[in-house]
């Protein structure tokens, strides 16, 4: 049921989420607002892409972020932001990171496995049975001795955590950390 535009958004925009959120955290003084900002930025990017797909999704994403923050500042009387210097640095960064850096399959799996292990016991069991073993909700409920409603709400919780891991950590600091660890790991093998 996902449209072509949805697929485009998932493959071209969402993978930059980790970097976007880190950037917002750095320049926007109220961290409580960052996820709302992220949502509004996504909406702008998506709606603009509906008219025409940007040629460089990543650069477009960050340009949108900057415009949105500028608008917010102008509309509020509270003068409030960290830096223009960061914005400039970011432009440089966008130019430099091309072609896109992607996580290797191994790094991706590692991040997923870590996120999976951080789920609560119940949630982790539900995700394992539904995702890996492919059990239905009913069978999962029976196996774990839970109500179906409980399985459903644990699945809802699990998918949010996994989305955070999948999209929240695909570049920047974590990528480097993942690379270092992967190298380190292979030496130990």
């Amino acid at each position, binding site marked *: 049921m*996902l449209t072509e535009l*949805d697929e485009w*958004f*998932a493959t071209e925009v*969402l993978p930059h989420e980790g970097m976007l959120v*880190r950037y917002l955290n750095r320049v926007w*003084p109220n961290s409580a607002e960052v*996820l*709302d900002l*992220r*949502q509004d930025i*996504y909406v702008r990017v*998506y*709606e603009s892409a509906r008219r025409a797909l940007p040629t460089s999704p990543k650069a477009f994403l960050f340009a949108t972020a900057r415009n949105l923050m500028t608008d917010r*500042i*102008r509309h509020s009387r*509270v*003068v409030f932001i*960290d*830096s*223009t*210097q960061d914005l400039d640095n970011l432009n440089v960064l966008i130019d430099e990171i091309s072609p896109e850096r992607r996580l290797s399959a*191994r790094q*991706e*799996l*590692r991040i*997923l*496995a870590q996120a*999976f*292990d951080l789920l609560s016991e119940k949630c*982790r*069991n539900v*995700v*394992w*049975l539904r995702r*890996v*073993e492919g059990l239905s*909700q009913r069978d999962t409920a029976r196996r774990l001795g839970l109500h*179906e*409603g409980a399985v*459903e*709400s644990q*699945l*809802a*919780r699990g*998918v*949010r955590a*996994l*989305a955070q*891991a*999948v*999209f929240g950590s695909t570049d920047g*600091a*974590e990528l*480097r*950390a993942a690379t*270092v*660890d*992967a190298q380190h*790991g292979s030496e130990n093998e």
Partner: protein
Amino acid sequence: MARSYGLRQWTLNMDPRMNSADVEASAAAWFARRASDDWNATDQAQLELWLSSSTAHRIAFVRLTAAWESSGRLNALGAGVPSGTIPPRNTWAFGAVSSAPAAETTPERLQSLPEPARPGEARIRKSDDIRAASRPLFSRHRRAIAAVLVAAAAGSIWYLSTAHEKSYRTQIGALAAVPLSDGSKVTLNTDSEIHVAVTPTERRVKLDQGEAFFEVAKDAARPFIVEIADKRVVAVGTQFSVRRDHDDIRVLVTDGRVRLERHGSSSGAPQTQIAAGSEARTTQTAVLVDQPAPAQVEQLLSWRAGYIIFRDTALADAVVEFNRYSARKIVIADPAIAGIRIGGNFRSDNANAFLWLLQSGFPIRVEQRSDRVILTKR
């Protein structure tokens, strides 16, 4: 039951000011419900309606769906695990768990030079060293705090033979937390310097320049004394800040009570008691005690969190404040703009944001030079 949950959330999210966490929770509820066994055409129609009612809904749903598809990689972990068993945690070795983002929130760290240990202190000193070695010396934080600690030679101007003195100095733009051996804590603002001597009878801090906030551990037997030129601030267990501008000081007490006195004064010399919530400012001849409003107290102490807060502040004063934190000074070249009133919260380490806002929100031109920044009327 889960069904009504999704719809209830949906109703909430018709609010034009959509909270992203609520949207995500609704999207997750829809996602999980769609994966249930009794999903039907009516449900599908409702989901379509929800998705089309706002782009934010659609994006949240797309995001979770795509993540779930990516998490199909977890299947790789199932290889070799017998069907029906859920592997315990930490089954998979991928090397050490890295938590790089955590560094973003870690407090400032200090780098300390070793000092000559006193015989009785050898063991403690050693364990301190181990603890220090296990921490990164400098945080990976991009606003890494550059604090420099200089260990002074034993024997100080105050205590020639018995006590040792330690000196702490922050560079321009830096902020540092300095734990003292008596359990007290000092937070040093930009471009500040203190010399500390803790003895069995007294705790003495000399503020050579700058500003510091003191959280004094209670110890009635050892008064805590801050010396500033010819003045002394004496406390037992309290919290207060001292800011030095040349020989004048401002003392703000947030907890307990301190005594301000002229250095060397005997009982006959004037003393000023400063209670919590009060601020004292000295001039050459007088001490003015004021009771600032809570918002003002916050403003006066915001530097500890790395912020400068202005409330209806003249541009000239704001510039003075920013210049404390940066070696590249801002200069107002046109008196016509010096009186412009500004307000807002700024990071003290980022004058550029301030300048950018001046330029975009006020009739001010900002000229960046290598050694200074010049403000003129536009």
